[in-house]
């Protein structure tokens, strides 16, 4: 269950990463289609990362001499990670929901006061969550997998950003 929840959070993170790297790179007014496309890219990115993580987990599990213990250890580590990730996700989603309030001041405030800083601390939250999750792990496989997945998730936004920047450079070259 904890692993499944982490997977859902990874997809959500990918979705938001996709939107974030697309922001400020298109100047049309009606952006719904643009952002949907960007979010799908983020979602696909997160799915690729999750698939790689699942493959790594599978391989380690096959090679492990204590498969059942590893599974329990992974579940426990995932459960601890959720103590960090779930409140963070709730804060982000809560602020996105707050933007439904029809007040320009409240909407702006969610951006400036909350979503901006929450974006800034995203890498730190990821590191803190994974380190807390694996801190009490009994098996080295769990710790190694945790760090591997952390590296994958941190590189997701970098990769999406790189792709978006390349596309933007192409557009600018075509324009001017």
């Amino acid at each position, binding site marked *: 269950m904890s692993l499944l929840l982490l997977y859902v959070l990874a997809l959500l993170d990918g979705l938001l990463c996709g939107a974030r790297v697309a*922001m*400020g*790179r*298109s*100047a*049309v*007014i*009606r952006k719904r289609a643009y952002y949907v496309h960007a979010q799908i890219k983020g979602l696909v990115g997160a799915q690729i990362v999750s698939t790689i993580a699942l493959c790594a987990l599978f391989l380690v599990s096959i090679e492990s001499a204590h498969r059942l213990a590893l599974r329990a250890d992974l579940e426990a580590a995932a459960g601890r990670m959720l103590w960090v990730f779930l409140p963070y996700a709730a804060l982000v989603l809560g602020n996105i929901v707050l933007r439904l309030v029809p007040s*320009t*001041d409240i*909407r*702006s405030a969610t*951006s*400036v006061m909350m979503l*901006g*800083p929450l*974006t*800034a601390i995203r890498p730190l939250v990821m590191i803190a969550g994974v380190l807390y999750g694996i801190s009490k792990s009994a098996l080295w496989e769990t710790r190694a997998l945790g760090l591997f997945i952390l590296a994958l998730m941190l590189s997701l936004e970098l990769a999406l950003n790189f792709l978006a*920047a390349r596309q*933007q450079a192409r557009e*600018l*070259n075509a*324009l*001017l």
Partner: protein
Amino acid sequence: MIAAWNPAQPEITDLILQHHPQTLERLPVRKDDVLRVFSGYGNLQACRAIAGLPDKDGVLEERAIDQLLVATHWEMQRLAEEFYHGHRVWDLLRRLVATIRKSGFRETLRVVDVGCGIGYTSRWLAASVPLAEYGIDVVGMDLNSALVREANRLAALEKLNCHFFHGDAFSPEHSGHIFLSTGVIHHFRGKALGDFFRRHERPEIFAFLHYDFQPSVIAPLGSWFFHYLRMRTAVAKHDGVLSAARAHNARTLVEAARSSLPEFASGIYGAKIWKTPAPRVFHTLVGLRRPLLPEFRQQLGARLGRLGEMR
């Protein structure tokens, strides 16, 4: 003081793009000349940003500068979107339009967006408001031809009913009834600020709305954090924060407007968030012909509390 926040210096974008004041023809800009200005202020952040700009034989490459400016304006639009700037402008503009209509003016109202850049405000209005029903014609004016081209391209892409022109917004052929701007007036310093306001003294102009950063003790720090998070280009990160540091306070704005435009009643709108002492990021210099003021107050309704002293 942090050198990059010194309000006495110009912004990078003020210097890397130069036009002939009369013909508006683009002038070559020497990189060393720009670097020398910021070296004089000990502004290493600006120097690093300028050093990274491509040049040919010491002259900044026009195409690269245009690409940088367009990319920067795309990013700036994102900030405007986050601040719901279009909504804020329309919330005030529609009351101004209603005021002018009540005075008996029936012709199409021409709204001129001064220093429009890529025309976010105008395009937002055209995309979100039934301008024809209100009898409004929106045009944007800018001195940068690359930005004007981009504004027109974007408007055409979304089939928006607004137009952008390269030229002087106050010239007889482009003038309008209501002038508005966003983040423009802090570029006019000292005597130039009064000169800018004096140019509103044309018989056809009813009113103006000039939006700009509101200076406060925490504004540069807040702006630094926000631009650090949101902007990608070094020039935008630098200029965004410097804009907040250079922004005119309410007193400077209203004094300049009142002394330059005695026919207009001027004041600040929206300085505080609700009824708290917390300052809004942007405040608005509002000016309108004196006979329109009583009706404008009526039109503001519950928003009247946001309007400062008008005289």
